[in-house]
C-alpha cells in the first residue's frame, strides 16, 4: 500500500495537502482498497461550509456507502466534477483524484504523517 510522505492523513482515511492556504482533500489508498469499486461520489457545492470531523459528502461502492469526513473547517472553493462521471478514478489514482479544495481554513483536526498513518492502518486492518 502506498502512502506518499508529502501528504498528511486523517484517522477517517482522507489525505490532505496544503497549497497556498488551500486544503486539497482526497481518500487514501487504504480507504479505496477497503471500499472496493467506487461507483458514485456525492460532492458538496462550491461555497458550502465544512466542519473538521464532519461529513462533506459520501462515496458509494458496489456494496456500501461511506461518509467523506472533512479534516478542516472552511469553505469549499472547488470540487472535482470529473468524479461524477468517473468515480472509478478514486480506485485507479487515489492521490491524483482529489475530491474537494477548501479555503478560509479556521480549524484543522489532529493529522497523521505517512508513517503514523501506515501504523494506524495496520492496527485498523
Amino acid at each position: 500500500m502506498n502512502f506518499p510522505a508529502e501528504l498528511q492523513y486523517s484517522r477517517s482515511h482522507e489525505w490532505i495537502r496544503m497549497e497556498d492556504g488551500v486544503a486539497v482533500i482526497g481518500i487514501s489508498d487504504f480507504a479505496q482498497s477497503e471500499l472496493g469499486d467506487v461507483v458514485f461520489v456525492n460532492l458538496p457545492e462550491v461555497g458550502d461550509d465544512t466542519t473538521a470531523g464532519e461529513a462533506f459528502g459520501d462515496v458509494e461502492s458496489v456494496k456500501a456507502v461511506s461518509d467523506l469526513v472533512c479534516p478542516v473547517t472552511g469553505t469549499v472553493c472547488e470540487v472535482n466534477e470529473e468524479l461524477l462521471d468517473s468515480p472509478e478514478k478514486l480506485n485507479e489514482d487515489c492521490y491524483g483524484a482529489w475530491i474537494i479544495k477548501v479555503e478560509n481554513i479556521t480549524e484543522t483536526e489532529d493529522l497523521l504523517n505517512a508513517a503514523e498513518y501506515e501504523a494506524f492502518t495496520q492496527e485498523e486492518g
Partner: protein
Amino acid sequence: MDQLKRTQLYETHLAAGATMVDFGGWEMPVQYPTGIVAEHLYTRHFCSLFDVSHMGRLLIEGKDRVAFLQHVLSSNVEGLDLYKAQYCILPDADGSAVDDAYLYRFEEDRLLLVVNAANTEKDLTHLNALLPGYDCSITDITADWASIAVQGPKSKELLTVLTGGEAPTEPMKNALNTTTLEGRPARIAKTGYTGEPLGYEVYIPSEHAAWLWNRLVELGARPAGLGARDTLRLEAGMPLYGHEMGKDPDGTPMPIFAVPLAKFAVSFSERKGDYVGRAALEKQSAAFKRIMNRDFSDRAALPRTIRPITLLDRGVMRAGMPVYRGEEQIGWVTSGTMVPYYKAEGEGLETVITDKVEKRAIGLCYIDSDVLEDDVVTVDIRGKRLKAVIPARHLDSMAPPYARPILYGYELTAPEEDSEPRPARALALLKRAEENHLWRQKRCINLIPSENTPSRAVQMLSASDPSCRYAEHKKVKSFYDREIFYYQGTGFIEEVERLAVQELREYFGCTEVETRVTSGQMANMCAFSALMDWKNRLDRKHTPQRLGYVMNNHIIKGGHLSAQPMGALHDYIAVDPVTERSAVVNFPVCRDNIFKIDVEETKKLIEQYRPELIIFGKSMVIHKEPVAQIRQFVDEQKIPTTIMYDMAHVLGIAGPYFQDPFAEGAEIVTGSTHKSFFGPQRGVVAVNYKEDELKYGLWETIETRAFPGSVSNHHLGTMLGLLMSAYEMNQFRHEYQSAIIRNAKSFARSLKKAGLAVCGDPAIDYTETHQVLVRVGYGEGAEIASRLEKNNIIVNYQATPDEEGFTASGALRMGVSEMTRFGFGEAEFEKLAQLIAACVLRNENVAEDVARLRADYTTMHYCFDGPEFDAALEGFMGKIGF
C-alpha cells in the same frame, strides 16, 4: 460463535487472493482482486465461476418422495420430467416463504433440493417436522458434492471442451445432463442466478472440485465472488431470500406472490392436494389476478409486490431506503446498488456490444401493488428525496448468447416519415419495386429453402381477373353434396378448382384435397380445427375438448412453427393436467444425429402417451421422416391415432426421390405450395380417407373448417396459378425431383470440399432433401447471412438443435429448389459453393462474381415452353394489358 464452515474450494479462493467474509455461517469469497465491477462485466461478456458449494443440497428419496414434495413445495413436482429442474418455494402455512429453492431430477427415483446456505438448518427442521407419515427420507449431502456455477456467454463453449464436444445439456433452460468432464463424473444443470441465457451449475464430487475450477480458469473463465453474484442477480430481477422474500423491514411476512417468479413457481394442480400454504396462496393468486387486471379494490392478500426500480436522479439506492408516492410511504428498496454494463451501439440484430463501461443505479423494491409500470416515485436516500421510476425490467435474457441491459427510457430510432406528395410516393413505390424485383430475380442467388420463383404462366394467371373476385362455395346434402356457389360469375373458377383438385389428387396419390386454404399455416390450423371438431362431434353440449396428447418435432429440433403450441396449435392443444403444460410430446432425436428422429425412443413415448395426433414434418429438414415405421408400430399396437405430415418444405419433392407420405401411411398431408413446389403462395390439405371409412367424416370436417371455418375469400387469382403449377409439377416431376436431390447432395459435398462445416451424415451426402445446413460458428449465423446478402446470396440464418434460439444461430440453412428451377446443375452449385466459402471463410467480396453467375441462369425450367406456349402467353398478356 461457531467455527465458520468452508467449502471444498476454500484454499483455491485464498490462492486467488479472494476477500473472504462470513456468509450464512460459511467463509466465502466476496470478491477477488479484480473487484466486483470487473467480475460482473466479465460474467456478462465472457464467463465467470462462482463457488456455490455452500448451498444446502438435500436428497429426497423413497416411495413417497413426490407426494411429500407436492405437500411441502409450491411447485408441481409431478410435472418435473427426468433431466429437468424447476424453481420452487417452501411456503409456510401463512403463504410466506420459508425459503426458495431449486428442485433437480437427475435420477428417476431421487430428487435433489438445493436451498439457500443460510437457511439449510431452518429448512431441514421445517421439512423434517412435515415428514412423518411419508415413506421417504431427506439426506443432507452438501459435503459430498461441490457445486460450481459457470455463467456467461462463453460458458457453453468452455464446458464443451471438457465434455469432449458434447453439448453440456440440451439448450433449453432448466435442462439437466449426467456426463463426464475429462473423465470425472459430473451433473450439469442449465440453471443459474445471474440472468445469463447461457449458464450452468455443475455438480462434481468434492475431490474434483478444485480440478474443475482450475481447469475452467485455464480455459479463460475467471472467479467471481458473492458481491458480483448479488449485482448480477439484482440486475436480472431475481429475488434473494431475506431481501425480496421472508420479512419486510417492518418484520411483516411478505406474501410469496409478491415475487414475480411466483407465478411460475406456484401450482394449484388438484394433484398437489391441500399442501402447506395452499389456502393462503390461492387468496394471493386471486388478488394477483385482480391487480394484473388493474382492479385494485381488494389488495389485502397482496398489499405490496416486488418491482424493479431505476433511480432517475444521481445517487445510489440501498436496501431499506423508504419509497414514497407523493408524501405517502409505499414501501422500501429491498436491494439496490450501482450496476455496470457494456454500452451497446446499433439496433436489432446489428447491435454491437462495445467495451465502453457505463453504470446505472438500479434496485428492487417492495411497494404498494397498485403502482403501475412507468410510475415515478421518490426514494429517501439519507434524507434526500430522489426521483425513481418503476420499469418493466432491468435485463432481458431472451436474445442469447448475451443478457442485454434494458435501459429505462431507451427509444428506438424513429423511421423517417415520408413527406413527399402522394403522386411522388406512388412513383417511388413503382421504381423501388422494379429495383427489388430485378435484384432478387436477376442478380441474387436465392437459397432460402422455403421460397421459389413461379413460372411466368403461374405469375400471369395469379394476377388475372379472378384475383379480385369471390367464389364462396360448400357442399350441400340436399343436392347430393353438389358444391353450391354463393356468388355469380364463378363458372370459370369452379372449373379451375375442380381441375386443381384432380391434379393434386394425382400428385399425392390420395383421395381428397382441399385447396382453399391460402397458406401452410392456415392448412395446419384447418386440420387441427377439424381434428378437434371431429373429436367433439358426439357431444355438442359441452365446451369442446382440445387435442392431447399431440406428438411433434420440437421447434429447436427443426419443427415447424406452424405445428407448435406457440404457432398454429395454439388454440387447439390441451393443457396436460399432470404437468400443467401444453399436452405436446416431442419426437426424441438420435444422440449421434440430432437432425433425425430416434424411432425406437419414439415408440416408447407413443406407448406411454398414446398421442391422438402425430405430426411429422420440419422446417429444418435434411432427413426423411420415419412415417412407415411409426405407422406399422401404431397399427401393431392398435394405438388409435391420426398420422399427419406437414410437408410444407418438402411438398415439391414428395414421391420416389424423397418419400411418399400416403404410401407410407400418413392420413393427412398439409403443406404450402411455394417452397419446393411450383405454386404461388397458398396452402393445401390432402387426405387419403375413402368414402366408406369412418374417418371420411374427418375429411368432411376439414372441408367445413376450410370454408366457412378459415376463409371466406380464398384468393382466386392464385388458385389459377396453383392449377398451372400442378400441371407443371405433374408434367416435370421426375426430372425436377431427381435434379433437386442430386443438386442438394452435390452442393453439400462441394461446400464441404470448399472447407465449410456441413451438417449431417457424410455417408448419405449430408442430405435427403432440398436443404443443406452449414455451421458457421456459434452465434455467428445472422452476421454471416447478412454478409452473404451484401454479396447477393440470400440464405437463412438458422439455430441448430443444440442452440438456444435464433439470436444464437450458428448455422445457415440453404435450399437448392429455386436455382435448380433456373437451370443450376452440379457444376453451377460447385461454383456457388466456392463463392460462399470465399465470402464466409475469407470474407472476400464476391458480389460481382455472384451476379455474373446468376446472370446466365434467368430462364425458368420445368415449365411449359416452346413457340406455342410463348405465343399463348404473349397473347394473353397483350390482351389483358400486362
